């Protein structure tokens, strides 16, 4: 198993055949797709594709459970934002009234468009985080000749995040051992007591910074050196022909999307079969 930024992926996963640079390219370009797509069914299709890729990469789907409340709460906020907080619009089509408050078709439609635009963007990020290892990000950055100090800081940051999480667990256990337990306590109490984690966490980080520095200085590290460094990490990854092909496919799909959207007017709200169908259900006999 390989530890990724968000979980574990087996060694045998096909995702490790892909060069890290292509993974980063995938994140950067595919995240843009939903911004140019308003037709809900296409964004749903993109989500299905991303989920299929995640499953095919043998990602442990249980680690992704934390995103369910995020997706639900985001959906609720968007729905509230577009309906209850959406104001009154006499020119809009009323679906029904709840406690005298009109529920407009245009607002529901816009909420669905926005929600199904944001979900694939999140899924792209989750797919990337679930399948990418720390060192792959470093390899991708080095492959595009990012300065050594930037990649080094990033690598240290990712390591530091792991250490901080471990420190956080230790501090929490130490406080529980002294009888402090925030379980079943009200939120204000938990927030107040959270300070008790923060101070030791910062103090530990300060101590670690000195340990880190001493270790680096003892090994003769210098961030100002002009000496060309051997990129060992890059020797671990080979840019194969299929990486080039994947890069071309991703770029071509994006170009096609832009042409379809701006040359032929596709992927728009008016172009959405699903929204048209929903409209006929919610407002029978109503104009589009």
């Amino acid at each position, binding site marked *: 198993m390989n530890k990724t930024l*968000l979980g574990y992926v087996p060694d045998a996963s096909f995702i490790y055949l892909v060069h890290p640079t292509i993974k980063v390219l995938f*994140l*950067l370009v595919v*995240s843009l797709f939903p*911004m140019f797509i308003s037709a809900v069914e296409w964004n749903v299709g993109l989500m299905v594709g991303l989920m299929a890729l995640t499953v095919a990469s043998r990602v442990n789907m249980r680690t992704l459970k934390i*995103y369910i*409340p*995020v*997706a639900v*709460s*985001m959906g609720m*906020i*968007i729905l*509230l*934002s*577009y309906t209850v*907080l*959406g*104001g009154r619009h006499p020119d809009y089509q009323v679906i029904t009234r709840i406690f005298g408050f009109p529920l407009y078709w245009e*607002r529901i439609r*816009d909420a669905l468009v*926005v929600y199904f*635009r*944001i979900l694939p*963007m*999140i899924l*792209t*990020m989750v797919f990337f*985080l679930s399948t990418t290892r720390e060192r792959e990000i470093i390899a991708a950055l080095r492959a595009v000749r990012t300065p050594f*100090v930037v990649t*080094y*800081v990033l690598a*240290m*940051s990712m390591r*530091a*995040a792991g*250490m*901080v*999480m471990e420190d*956080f667990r230790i501090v929490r256990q130490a406080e529980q051992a002294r009888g402090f337990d925030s379980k079943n306590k009200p939120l204000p109490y938990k*927030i*107040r007591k*959270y*300070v008790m984690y*923060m*101070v030791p*966490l*910062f*103090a530990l*980080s*300060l101590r*670690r*910074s*000195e340990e880190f*520095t001493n270790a*680096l*200085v003892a090994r003769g*590290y*210098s*961030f100002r050196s002009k000496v060309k460094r051997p990129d060992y990490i890059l020797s671990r990854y080979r840019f194969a022909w299929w990486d080039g092909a994947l890069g071309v496919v991703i770029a071509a799909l994006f170009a096609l999307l832009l042409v379809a959207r701006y040359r032929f007017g596709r992927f728009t709200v008016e172009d959405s079969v699903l929204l048209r169908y929903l409209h006929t259900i919610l407002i029978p006999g109503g104009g589009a």
Partner: protein
Amino acid sequence: MANNGNGRSVWKVEEGERRSVGVIHIVITALLIGVGFVVGAFGSISFPLGFGVNFFWTGIVVQQVGPIWFGAWGVIAGTIFPFFSNAIAGTPFYVSLAYIPANFVQALLPAWAFKKFNCDPRMKSGKDYGVLLLAMVVSSAFGALYSPLVVLRGFGLLTTESLPLFIWGWFGGNVVAGLVFNFILLKALSGVVIKTPAFVKRWWS
């Protein structure tokens, strides 16, 4: 007056004192990004309002206390780490990227105010508390206006009518968390931090 115990400002470089950028500053930047990543993600996952806006964003402590202690290194960390903590909490890549100016101002302003008005990070006088509070409010107000009005509206994620919810959500989430943590952390740890070589008197060293 912010002084080091001898009646001198903690920000003043003493005669004969040599201060330069060192490995420790690079390390502290990385560690602050790491701490912010964890602490910020906790706030983003626990109290979400949506699109990386939270009711109680614990990351603000790293974003504002870090730059006061470590100058530009803290500002760099405070600008970068929310990008990662938001990402892990499910904020789309380009939305996180677009928040960078807001995070930069939120990180920069308290540090700038402390240096400009010669405040003591050990919070020894009413002026120190007042300046920090004002800097927190002003910087969070900028973030709260910029992010929903420019970023979320720019991406077409919000209606005009729902903007106040996100503006107040961002502002309140930052200021309340800042009130809970910033003062205590500065009071508890500044005495130790200013004695370490990592403490930054000017902007870089």
